């Protein structure tokens, strides 16, 4: 079942078109990634879905409801971590959770969330005294305290050190395991590759592709090696090989499936000696560049 359906979403600010016909749907229980460089409409899209902004055109259904018309019922069932929000400097961790829990008809027990998100020993700490990672964990806990069916997390690991990012990823997987659908806005490739079941790639206010991270990256691999002795012929016709290019004695062979085994067997049969053999996987980053015609960041 689709928990979010966005069809032909449009939004303009003055004479700037921010969203130019965005469509996608999010299935129950998945982690859905919204990926793209800054300024491509990711956050605007999510803010429309959350009911923070009114779209100029198109339709949005969240759990079967319109986020503007049925705002209250939608907000009861979603949890949101917004980019660039803070809490009052002097509020204590437990007070913030207790307060936000009181906003919802059927909240979770915030004491459990304190434990789950490793904030139990910061229970009485004031927000202003928390580290970046602790603040981020508190924001995620606040997004979950209403016991939502869908959680929106916008750039949740920006500003965290690599270790804290890894730890946050593990926690997001736990959120999904708890049955919550997650919409993850990110401009980090590695984050999306690690976490998302499916990804919508945004560019210039449009969705240019929707697929699994592996599907987007494609099954294609690249084999590079230097020919030491012998003449290399007939590689093009091997099963799985999709391309061969040569620059002096440096070779690049691309292909899918088990093509690398076929290539090495072929080279051995023809007594071609190679060195510096490397096989790389095409990454989401390569796919992104191919899709949008621009490199990331």
């Amino acid at each position, binding site marked *: 079942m689709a928990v979010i359906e966005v069809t032909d979403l449009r939004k303009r600010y003055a004479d700037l078109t921010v969203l130019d016909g965005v469509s996608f749907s999010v299935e129950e229980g998945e982690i859905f990634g919204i990926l793209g460089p800054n300024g491509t409409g990711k956050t605007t899209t999510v803010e429309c879905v959350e009911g*923070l902004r009114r779209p100029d055109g198109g339709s949005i259904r969240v759990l079967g409801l319109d986020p503007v018309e049925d705002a209250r019922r939608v907000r009861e069932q979603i949890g949101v971590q917004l980019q660039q929000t803070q809490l009052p400097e002097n509020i204590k961790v437990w007070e913030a959770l207790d*307060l936000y829990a009181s906003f919802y008809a059927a909240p979770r027990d915030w004491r459990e969330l304190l434990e789950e998100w490793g904030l139990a020993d910061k229970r009485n700490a004031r927000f202003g005294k928390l580290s970046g990672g602790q603040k981020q964990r508190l924001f995620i806990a606040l997004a979950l305290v209403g016991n939502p069916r869908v959680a929106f997390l916008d750039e949740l690991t920006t500003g965290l050190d690599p270790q804290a990012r890894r730890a946050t990823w593990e926690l997001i997987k736990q959120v999904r395991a708890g049955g919550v659908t997650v919409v993850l806005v990110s401009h980090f490739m590695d984050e999306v590759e690690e976490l998302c079941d499916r990804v919508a790639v945004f560019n210039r206010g449009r969705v240019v592709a929707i697929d699994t991270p592996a599907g987007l990256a494609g099954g294609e691999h690249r084999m590079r090696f230097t020919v030491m002795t012998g003449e290399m012929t007939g590689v093009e016709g091997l099963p799985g090989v999709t391309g061969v290019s040569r620059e002096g004695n440096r070779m690049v062979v691309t292909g899918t499936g088990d093509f690398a085994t076929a290539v090495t067997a072929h080279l051995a049969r023809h007594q071609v000696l190679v060195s510096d053999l490397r096989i790389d996987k095409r990454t989401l980053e390569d796919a992104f560049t191919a899709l949008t015609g621009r490199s990331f960041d």
Partner: protein
Amino acid sequence: MMKLAFVETKLLTREPGALFSLLIPLFILVVFGSSIEPGDTVLLPMALAIAVGLVALYMLPTTLATYRERGILRRLSVTPVRPGNLLAVQLLLLLVLALAACGLLLAVAGTVLGARLPAGGLPAALVFILGTASMFAVGLLIAALAPNGRSANGIGVLLYFPMAYLAGLMQPVHLMPDMLIRIGEFTPLGAFAQSMREVWAGGAPSPLLLGVMAAYALAVSLAAAKFFRWE
């Protein structure tokens, strides 16, 4: 809603500014109070106007603009609670703070210093309500227009001093040029201070001053509502 009010109250008590708004007028009252005659009618209305002015121009804009700057109002708009509730709670709390500051001044002045308390409670209450409403409206307009908490604070303080000067809160009124007094009567704080002096002197507040305050309260708060941004 009750929990929101409770948490916001706790936050207010952790705010040093709240304590300042209570203590600065009290300090002024006590310092000058040592030299007043029993039955003085000048000092207490002055301290009361300072107290209301501080809450309205210092506490109110800073708090609200900071809440917007930190995205707290925006964060609330994605919960089932409307961010308007937070504004309502804040206004109510600051009103309570202004009342507490005034109550403290009245208590100290009435007992220890032997200053005169107004005979008519009703005119005094009317002046207090209109004066506070007009000053809070100005504070709200600053909160609406200021881009962030720090500039709201700056604008509030910057506006406070000329208003306090024109209202005769920085020097005795009889030492001021008539022209300035007249101008002062058409500022919200000036009308507030002047009508309180009238009440303290035993008379009725002049309808013109009440009208000035009511007009500010209405017009400025409408402007604040029009310009207010949630994010």
